């Protein structure tokens, strides 16, 4: 088996392990958050407007007296939902299109040219344009991000499929008379899995960042439901008086995306010993 070669390095390395723990902790805190800190994220308290962080208000309050901590948790839940769904759907759609392009020569050229065109447009710009024609809802944000990322994943899977197709074990399977669907499902897809996991990790990070960008620009899921992006969008006019309202959501976006990126790098280094210098 190829196992012994790919598993030469055990574990992910310290930095990647730390970021994995960090990401898991962040997700756990956001998921458990509403049970640990039960203040409503949309509760308006006029007397408690723009209070800086203190014991009573752990991360301070915003211009309506709403608790920043409660809003950061609720916003985080939305970010996690969007990122997880986007990741799952993109990997599914990207693998499917990539495998089709990598095994059906007639479709390969067409699919790759179309993906060239998608890659000529920065992800955020295309997602913004898609949001222009759809209702600004969470589902449509996921849809826009999936459309934008899928060509990138498809390209990668297609490249891998073309490599694996020439491997002796695929040749052997073909010689044994295996059906094409069996070769794809049993030989090509499992061997492309490490790359897919790496990509999935990166997409999770990008999705958090791009969802926040869309919300920040006002074309994401509409308020009053908090998201990290729309919190920043409202708070940027208050930088002078209440910097903490913008500081915390941005910090969490940064931590989430940084952990996802480092984790992705760590997994890639482990499966591709040449890159881990």
């Amino acid at each position: 088996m190829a196992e012994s070669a790919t598993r030469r390095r055990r574990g992910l390395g310290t930095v990647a392990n730390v970021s994995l723990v960090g990401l898991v902790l962040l997700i756990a805190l956001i998921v458990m958050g509403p049970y640990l800190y039960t203040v409503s994220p949309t509760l308006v308290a006029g007397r408690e407007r723009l209070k800086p962080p203190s014991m009573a208000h752990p991360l301070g309050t915003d211009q309506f007296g709403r608790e920043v901590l409660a809003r950061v948790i609720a916003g985080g839940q939305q970010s996690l939902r969007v990122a997880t769904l986007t990741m799952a759907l993109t990997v599914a759609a990207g693998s499917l299109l990539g495998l089709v392009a990598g095994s059906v020569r007639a479709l390969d050229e067409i699919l790759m040219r179309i993906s060239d065109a998608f890659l000529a447009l920065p992800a955020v710009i295309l997602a913004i344009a898609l949001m222009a024609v759809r209702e600004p809802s969470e589902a449509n944000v996921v849809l826009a991000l999936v459309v934008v990322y899928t060509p990138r994943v498809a390209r990668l899977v297609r490249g891998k499929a073309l490599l694996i197709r020439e491997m002796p074990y695929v040749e052997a399977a073909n010689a044994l008379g295996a059906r094409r669907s069996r070769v794809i499902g049993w030989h090509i897809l499992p061997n492309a899995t490490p790359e897919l996991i790496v990509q999935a990790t990166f997409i999770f990070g990008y999705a958090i960042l791009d969802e926040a960008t869309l919300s920040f620009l006002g074309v994401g899921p509409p308020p009053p439901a908090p998201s990290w992006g729309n919190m920043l969008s409202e708070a940027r006019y208050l930088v002078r008086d209440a910097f903490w309202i913008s500081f915390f959501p941005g910090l969490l976006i940064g931590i989430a995306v940084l952990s996802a990126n480092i984790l992705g790098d760590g997994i890639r280094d482990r499966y591709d010993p040449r890159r881990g210098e």
Partner: protein
Amino acid sequence: MTGFLASRALSLAFVLWLVTMIAFVVIRLAPGDPSAIMLGSDATPKAVAEFRAKYGLDRPIAVQYIAWLGRVVRGDLGTSIYLGRPVTTAILERLPVSLTLTLAAFVIAVMLGVTLGLVAAYWHDTWVDRAVSVVAALGLSMPSFWLGICLIYLFAVRWALLPSGGFVEPWVDPPASLRHLLLPAFALGYLQSGLIARMTRTSMLEALRGDFVRTARSKGVAELRVVVKHAFRNALIPVLTVTGIALAVLFGGAVVIETVFTLPGVGRLLVNAVVRRDYAVVQGTLLLVALWYVLVNIAVDILYTVSDPRVRLRAS
């Protein structure tokens, strides 16, 4: 060499043509007929029919696309319903702001990225190298708009050193323009400097191991000259590639930064158009961004052939 450039230009033109299809199709995904959007929901059936006839909406979709493409090629991107003016004019008016921001950010990204990459490669596996990789990783993960807000807080609010937004044309008042550009250009450029630093480091590590570097050193060539003239010249091609990508991506990133620093550029035009459902403007901006991408790529191809004789030879 001209053959290589011609074939690249041809395939990029093809990409641009495909993008026109995407831009055309995206707008057609909008719920309802363009006539309903343009005229409003209370338009009379007669007005709708006249509108449809005037803009050819009663013809087959392929015919509509070809007619639209014909206008686009001649530089006519339609009329903005909100601004009541040609989209091309609206875009051209704001283009200098976005281009100035993009180029300023590009200068910062390249200077910072290449310097960090060179330093990290030269002192690789030391604390310098690790510090650079942290700086690079932060750049790749931080939301640019958050970095912008933090910079505004520190430099404009706390220390009152620089303005928090606005745009001054560089050809009107260069010093004031520079002061206004510094924060947005850094917020935008820092992100891409991480990618450039990583690529510079990897590529330089390889070049520094080359025999020609040992030869140069043994001949007694000054160390700085070895690094810059001998090693970096040979490490240049992959760096050029990411630099080109950076320049293409920065133009898109400008959209967000223009919102943070209230710069009247194309990005603000796009965001406002999305909120107002001003589809012609959205379509025009998509085409502009793709055109920018294609032009940058052609420029990078030309630089390849200039900077590396091997590309020149292989192509001819």
